[in-house]
């Protein structure tokens, strides 16, 4: 069994964590774009463009899902290996949430989440948006927590 130095995960994770924060941020921006339907006097944007836009955004969002979830999973794995129980404990709920979200996706079709036909329903959109904000907060906090832990371990090392 490989024995990591205690500060290993933090130093390792510090770098990837900062871009990691961007995932929910991107989602938030994307949802915001979905929500703002330019209110032109015509009452209808160009349907074609608008539809394409929605599909594009959904497509982008779907692309973000797997990297985010897998990276987070990787984190948890590392914490596990490093026996960072507290940190792991903090992350476990999110891990389970991700697993649930991924496997409990809408029954229709093969598309993971962010289905273009239903995303515009306000309740789904609201849910996704809220989810993104929460995650953003969580990632930000954990970012500082990791930073603090890293500095702490480095100092105490």
């Amino acid at each position, binding site marked *: 069994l490989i024995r990591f130095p205690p500060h290993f995960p933090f130093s390792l994770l510090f770098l990837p964590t900062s871009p990691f924060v961007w995932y929910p941020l991107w989602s938030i921006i994307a949802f915001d774009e979905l*929500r703002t*339907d330019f*209110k032109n*006097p*015509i*009452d*209808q*944007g*160009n*349907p*074609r463009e*608008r*539809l*394409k836009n*929605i*599909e594009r955004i959904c497509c982008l969002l779907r692309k973000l899902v797997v990297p985010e979830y897998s990276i987070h999973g990787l984190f948890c794995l590392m914490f596990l290996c490093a026996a960072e129980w507290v940190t792991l404990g903090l992350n476990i709920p999110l891990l389970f949430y991700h697993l649930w979200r991924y496997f409990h996706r*809408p*029954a*229709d*079709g*093969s*598309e993971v989440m962010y289905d*273009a*036909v*239903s995303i*515009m*329903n*306000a*309740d*789904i*959109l*609201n849910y996704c948006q809220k989810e993104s904000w929460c995650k953003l907060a969580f990632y930000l906090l954990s970012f500082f927590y990791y930073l603090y832990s890293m500095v702490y371990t480095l100092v105490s090392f």
Partner: protein
Amino acid sequence: MSAPAESPHPAASARISPKLGGATASGAATPAGPGPAPHQQNGPAQSQMQVPSGYGVHPQNYIAPSGHYPQGPGKMTSLPLDSQCGDYYSGLYTVPTQNVVTPNTANQQPGAQHMYGRGPSAPHIVGSTPGSFQGATSPTLHLHTSAAQRYSHFVNHYSSPAMYSANSSVASQGFPSTCAHYAMSTVSTAAYPSVSYPSLPAGDPYGQQMFTSQNAPTVRPLRENSFSDHSTAISHPSPLPPPPSHQYHQPQSLSGCSTLSWSASGLPSTQHNIVRNHTGSLATANSNSTNTVTDSLSCPVMQNVQPLKSSPVVSTVLSGASSTRTPPAANRPVEPVASVTQPSELLQQKGVDSSSTTSSASPMPNSYDALEGGSYPDMLSSSASSPAPDPAPEPDPAPAPAPASSAPQPSKMTKPFGYGYPTLQPGYQNATAPPNSGVPPSSPGYSGFQPYAQQYPGMNQLSSGLGGLSLQSSPQPESLRPINLTQERNILPVTPVWAPVPNLNLDLKKLNCSPDSFRCTLTNIPQTQALLNKAKLPLGLLLHPFRDLTQLPVITSNTIVRCRSCRTYINPFVSFIDQRRWKCNLCYRVNDVPEEFMYNPLTRSYGEPHKRPEVQNSTVEFIASSDYMLRPPQPAVYLFVLDVSHNAVEAGYLTILCQSLLENLDKLPGDSRTRIGFMTFDSTIHFYNLQEGLSQPQMLIVSDIDDVFLPTPDSLLVNLYESKELIKDLLNALPNMFTNTRETHSALGPALQAAFKLMSPTGGRVSVFQTQLPSLGAGLLQSREDPNQRSSTKVVQHLGPATDFYKKLALDCSGQQTAVDLFLLSSQYSDLASLACMSKYSAGCIYYYPSFHYTHNPSQAEKLQKDLKRYLTRKIGFEAVMRIRCTKGLSMHTFHGNFFVRSTDLLSLANINPDAGFAVQLSIEENLTDTSLVCFQTALLYTSSKGERRIRVHTLCLPVVSSLADVYAGVDVQAAICLLANMAVDRSVSSSLSDARDALVNAVVDSLSAYGSMVSNLQHSALIAPSSLKLFPLYVLALLKQKAFRTGTSTRLDDRVYAMCQIKCQPLVHLMKMIHPNLYRIDRLTDEGAIHVNDKVVPQPPLQKLSAEKLTREGAFLMDCGSVFYIWIGKSCDNHFIEDVLGYPNFASIPQKMTHLPELDTLSSERARSFITWLRDNRPLSPILHVVKDESPAKTEFFQHLIEDRTEAAFSYYEFLLHIQHQICK
């Protein structure tokens, strides 16, 4: 590949020049050489043949007539073609590769031809010559009416826009009404914030009297002036008639009952009592002298005017209109109809088409042409549409309500309800109250807010004193009367359930949108989300925005006045701050009144913006300017994609389809640009070149289904009128062309892709006829149904689509303004769950005919025929968008229906049809404490089939309440059930069926227990529901036993999915019939309570509850399930009845399958038939009739609709109640 129109495919493009045809075809096949495999023939070569019937068997036939080539597109060299064909056929039996099919046309089906003879049928004329039809056309209209389901009186309407616009820019026929409004404007503004409750004496909750009585004198003269002014000013005959009808209609239809109750409430209670005890006619007599005076004043004027100027039709209209005192929907038994009206009128009135709508009976087929003009047959006489609420009508209703109230109401309430919650039947009794004399209804329109606001104190007190003290000697609103469900045996009212009328003041009520187009589950909107949560009731809207209407003000105006910040259209519920400014009722922004709006074209007066038709009608239609177009309005384009595989040919639907098309070709909605095209497919895709100038239709076959392209993109969709002969030829030939096919595969996916390519330049409607699982190419599906699981009580799987191919295709189509309508005529499982996606997201509609066969299953064939007739001729709107706005503080989430949600409040509808319904769920985001009214506005922007851009706007206004009791008092149980059904469908797809079922049960349990805890003074052991909710458990039980949600009973997956699709996209009226069928006993029909429709007496038997206990062996019963009628004949049914109605001597001789009632010349037969016809006329899709003998095997189908009874798998109603009670106590 082969993208857009211009350069479809190398081969194909070459082929466009006919001369190159054959040669290139072979060339195109080159990649693998002219091989035998069908897919190698990329290019459609064209051959031609004379005898289509034979070709399937003998490939040689094709080659034989090669002499005819010159006729064809190509003077092809026969050589390559020969070889090609030879190869092809050697490999593949029947499929004719490239043939120019010469359908043996004209002679084959002479029948088809004569249809055209009828040709330019009435509506057509009307459409083409607006304005001229007065006398001449209307008679012709009569000719064709019998078949039409909907009637509109107002032929004239069509012309009205034009005429009006001639006079002025505004087209609608509003009457100047309530002139006094404006005078009160200052009051209104002040009052609007609803601060001013206290200003009235507490004893009088409905402050109107004070106002109105004061204003009355001034109002009346004004009105009359304007009236006469109007009539004289406009010399056109046509525009005039409508207004009166409007006026008269509206009081009764919408506000009729409730309105009165409001005004009545103001009366001293003594009067109430008197009235209560009298029959309707008496009540009218009682009504105040002032009323009658106004009545007489206004009535004569109108009546005189109209007969003079209008054609026969119109005059009937008139009488119908004036008679409108008849309940708008015939369902209300109108017995001794207003004694006031003359007998002749009486008949006319009864011409009222029942379905809660038309009070107008004119023979206009419900077809586009007439409709487009703005005369909308089949609409309700809703107050919504009344252009200008003339003050006069208000008092008028006096007679009207009376009849209504006189309706036999078993569940007669003992208490008087001065309170205005006429939710259910009993509520109508309020109407008995004499219209208050003191209340000239013309209470100032805009000051209306004040009186309105003032009713609240009363209301609150009422609710607080729920136990029964009330101001006006009305203990509590009827809708709040607690009912012990377990002890109430006959919970179902004897007459159809009506939509509750929002508890608004008189004027707003009058102006409010008709419940047929726009309904909210709670007619009293709770003030906060917390309150809503406490009530545990679903909050949402049910829309039927594109309903066929008989009267619709159409407004042509340069500027369409809208709020500058939220873009709300100006509507009756805005407030005018002064002459030049109005305040939006949705976002409260103050806007300027544009100069043009100051001029009222109806009165030709200046400075009366509040009298414009936009402000007098909650349902209006604007002719949109070019600002509302992204591109020139598209023409009507119809593409038919037909399955011609062996299975399809076997089922024989082609004959029916082609026949219907031939019959209705001239009635297809559209203008001179209308285009039409046909495609057929089995394992290959066949296109038909119908280009004008060809001597016969050419069939082009594309066998490369992996990469579909359009052989001749320009000539596949052709102008209907230019190529009519070719189209007829094709339609005559089509049923016989594939008779010998042995191709069993179905390449639906590729055919749809091709259809999409064909339609994308214009958009339009694609009608897909499919008979089996698609088995080739993209979008192929596997059978997912396990027949053993059909009656499983546990898990029902595969309710969602198997592939997202159809969904993506639908989205593409939606982006190109193309809707896909699916007709599934299958004998086995066809995975409707997947296929339905093509219609769901492209705003199409879905029709399903299980086990369709044209000879073995004649009833389905007949249904298809009738459905097609409606489908082909009904109105259609293209490239539509619908935006729903609501007052700030409310927000919409989750839409239900067939559409694509393009934005949080915008639905993208490639097509809109009059049979489409929608539902929206609402939530309350901000407290509505500072407002007493909330409004919802639906704006549907569409391109009519005539190429006009139009906006139809509906506005609904509802009061806000702060107490839980009021929320319960305002529940619209039918709307709530329909919304719940929609939500349950979503739930069962996204989660599971059992979840959805649990959620439905929980909805009842939660709401009833919430109510129970509210009325804590009552004993807890009983299951108590407010009267407004008394049908809730019954309906939920009905839902649980519905095909969509039932478990334990064998249900085919497709049937289940279809039921779900219907729940999602049917409008409320039809959905309710599907959920809870109506049962009538018909062996003892009498004329008691009968209504008169078109000179026919239509008996109105009472509703029976859906339980076998009601089925006596001696009786015969009719069950109306919306899309199907059952007539159940008891074993020992009276032989007289069987003989007189069914035409058989006794019970034993009735055949097992009987789908028609013979036309016998007996009284009982006449009654039964007129009743059934009347029921049928009320709905768009003509239901089929099954006569079910007591012993026949078909009776299970009948019995499964008896939802109050117990089945092996489900509770009886009583058990269900006990179950709920148990859950509540838990």
